[in-house]
C-alpha cells in the first residue's frame, strides 16, 4: 500500500492462452515493479515457462493485454521484447559450441560496421566489459566447449544483459549449479534488483526463492492462485498452495482428503 501514484513497469491483464484444448494460461493478472524480484512457483505443467515465453514474445496471448510502463504493447517476437527492454534466460542455454564466448554473447545481434562486415573488436571489448560487470573471470576469447554449466549460465546472463534490459525473466537459473555458482547467481540477482531492474524468476528451490524474492506468485493449472509478500508468508503456505490445499483455521486442508474421510465416516455410521 503506497500513497504515491506508482506506475508498474509491467502489467499483465487477463492473459489467456490455449494450445488445442488445454488452457495453458487462464486469466493471468500480474504486475511487476522496479527494484523488485517476483518469484513464480508451481508444480510441473502449471504454466510458468509458458508465461515467461508469452512475456518475451515467443507466444502471443489469445486474449488479454500486456501493459509496459502504462502503455498497451504487443510483443510479436523476441527482438521486439528486447527493444522494449525485456530479456529472458531459459534453461536450454542454446549456444554454438564452435564459437567463442564473445560471439555467443552477440549471437543474432552481431555488431557490424558499414558494408555489413562484422566488428569483432567491438564485440570482444563489450563482451569483456559485461563479463567483468558480472565479476566473472571468464575470458571472452575462450571457446564455449569445455565450459561448466555455471560458466555457460554466466554467459547466458551476459547475453541477456547486452542491451541493458529493465525486465529480466529467468527460468530455473540455479538448477544444476554448484554452491559457489548458485551463490554468485543469487548475489547477482540481488544486485540487479538493487540497481532497479525488475526480475521474474521461476524457481523450484524454496529457500532460494525466500532468499531473493520480494513477492511470490503461485501458479496452478494455468492460473495464478495467490501472490504473497515474502515476509508475510511461510514455506507451509506456499507449498500448500502449490499442491492446491486451502487454509482453514491455520491448518492446510486438501479438499480431496476431506471428501474421502467423509465417505469413510458415512460408511461406519
Amino acid at each position: 500500500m503506497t500513497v504515491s501514484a506508482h506506475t508498474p513497469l509491467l502489467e499483465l491483464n487477463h492473459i489467456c492462452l490455449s494450445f488445442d484444448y488445454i488452457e495453458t494460461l487462464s486469466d493471468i493478472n500480474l504486475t511487476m515493479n522496479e527494484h523488485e524480484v517476483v518469484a513464480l512457483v508451481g508444480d510441473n505443467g502449471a504454466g510458468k515457462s509458458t508465461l515467461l515465453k508469452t512475456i518475451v514474445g515467443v507466444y502471443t496471448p489469445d486474449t488479454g493485454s500486456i501493459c509496459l510502463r502504462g502503455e498497451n504493447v504487443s510483443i510479436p517476437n523476441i527482438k521486439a521484447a528486447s527493444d522494449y527492454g525485456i530479456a529472458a534466460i531459459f534453461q536450454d542455454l542454446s549456444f554454438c559450441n564452435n564459437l567463442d564466448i564473445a560471439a555467443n554473447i552477440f549471437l543474432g545481434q552481431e555488431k557490424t560496421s558499414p558494408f555489413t562486415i562484422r566488428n569483432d573488436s567491438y564485440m570482444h571489448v563489450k563482451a569483456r566489459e559485461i563479463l567483468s560487470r558480472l565479476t566473472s573471470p571468464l575470458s571472452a576469447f575462450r571457446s564455449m566447449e569445455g565450459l561448466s554449466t555455471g560458466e555457460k549460465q554466466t554467459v547466458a546472463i551476459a547475453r541477456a544483459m547486452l542491451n541493458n534490459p529493465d525486465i529480466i525473466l529467468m527460468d530455473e537459473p540455479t538448477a544444476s549449479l554448484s554452491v559457489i555458482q548458485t551463490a554468485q547467481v543469487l548475489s547477482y540477482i540481488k544486485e540487479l534488483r538493487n540497481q532497479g531492474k525488475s526480475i521474474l524468476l521461476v524457481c523450484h528451490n524454496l529457500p532460494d526463492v525466500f532468499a531473493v524474492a520480494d513477492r511470490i506468485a503461485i501458479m496452478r493449472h494455468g492460473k495464478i492462485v495467490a501472490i504473497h509478500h515474502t515476509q508475510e508468508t511461510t514455506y507451509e503456505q506456499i507449498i500448500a498452495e502449490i499442491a492446491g490445499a486451502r487454509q482453514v483455521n491455520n491448518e492446510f486442508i486438501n479438499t480431496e482428503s476431506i471428501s474421502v474421510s467423509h465417505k469413510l465416516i458415512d460408511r461406519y455410521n
Partner: protein
Amino acid sequence: MTFRAFISILYILMFILKCMANQISGSQTSLREANMAMLFDAITKYGAMTQVELAEATGLSTATVSILVRRLVDDGLFTTTDTIRSGRRATLVSIARKMGIGVGLHIGRNHLSICITDFSQKILAYHDRPLPYGHKPDSTLIEALRLIHETVESIAASIDEIVAVMISLATPIDWKHQQIGVRGILRDWDDTDIIAYFKKSFQCPIFLDNDANTAAIAESKQGVGIDFPNFLYVQAGDGIGASLFINGALYRGSMGLAGEIGHIQVDPFGDICACGNRGCLDTVVNEQRLTSVLSFTHGSITLDDLIRKAQDGDPGCRRVISDAAVRVGTVIAQTCISMDPQCIIIGGDLSKSGDAFLEPLRQSIQRLLFPNAVAPIKIMSSTMPDTNVTLGAALAAIELASNQPPVSAQ
C-alpha cells in the same frame, strides 16, 4: 724464536681461532634463525612486504634480508614476486601458500559469506551466498560446509592446508568457552553445537567470535584502523555491536562479551529485548522498528531498501536513519568517555547510507564529549562495510593458528 716454536705457536693460534670460529658459527646459526623468525613475524603481522620494507620493519640490513629471503624461498617457506615501489622495481615477499590458509565464515541474518586468506593476509577467495530470513541451522551448516569445500577446491588447495576456521555470528560469544554467550538473540542457534559440527570435517581448530569483533580485526589489519592502536569499532545495522581495540589488541573482557553496546539501556520503559533486558539500544535501532515506522508511506520495505532510498534522498527514510544515528551516537559517546579511544570506526549496513547516518551521528557524539578537549575525536566510516566481518574472521583464524601475539589482550 726457532722455526719449530713458531710453527707450534701458529698451530695453537689456529686452534684457538678455530674454536672461536666454531663459537661464532654456532651463534651465527641461531642468529640467522632469529632473524628469519623476525622476517616471518613481520610478514604475518603486516602482510606481504618488499625487501626494503622488511629491512625497515626488522632493523636488519637490506643485504641480510636479501640473503635470508633467498634462503627461505629455497626452503619453500617464502615466495617472491616483482612489484613497483616509488616507481622502482622491487621484490615483494610473501609467505608461501603451503604454510596454510585460514577460513573465515560469516553466518549473517540473510546471507552466508566465506573468505580464505593466506599467511600474508592476501585474500584467496571471497563468496557471498544469500539465505532466507530465519534460515535454520541444519540447512545453513550443510550449505556452509559445502561452500568451504568448494571454495578450497576452487583455489586449488586442499582441506589439509586449512590451519583454522573462524565463524563469526551476530550474537555475543563467550570467548573463553567458545559458545554463544547470551541466549535468545539468535534463538534458532542457541542449542546448536557449531564447533562440533565442523570438527567432524576438519582437523584444524574451529573458533567462534562475534561479528563486530572480527570486523574490527579486519579494520585494524587492513582497514582505516591500521594506524590506530586504540579505537572503538561500531557495527550499526539490524542491532548495534561494538568492539574495543586497546594498545593494538582486541579487548574481549572476562567472558568475551566486551563491546555489546546494543544492550545498554536507553529507555527504562522500552520494549523487552531478545537478551531479556528492557529498553536496550537494540530495541530502538533494529530492522523491524526502523522499517515499521515507514509502513504507512512506503509499504513493507527491508532495511536494505530503506538505506538505498535514503542514499537516493528519500526524506522519510533519511529522517528515520538520522533519528537512529542520534540514539546510537549517545551510547557511543558514553562508551568513549569510558574508553578514551583515538578514533571511532563505523561499519555495518547503516554506515552504507553515508552522510544520512554519519552526520547526525558525528554531531550527537561531539555534543556529549568534552567540549574543551584538545582534539576532537576522529569518526571514520569503514571502507569495507560489506566484507570486513568475513575478512576479519579469516585473518583472525590465521593469527590464532600461528600463535602470534594473541588476538585478545587477555
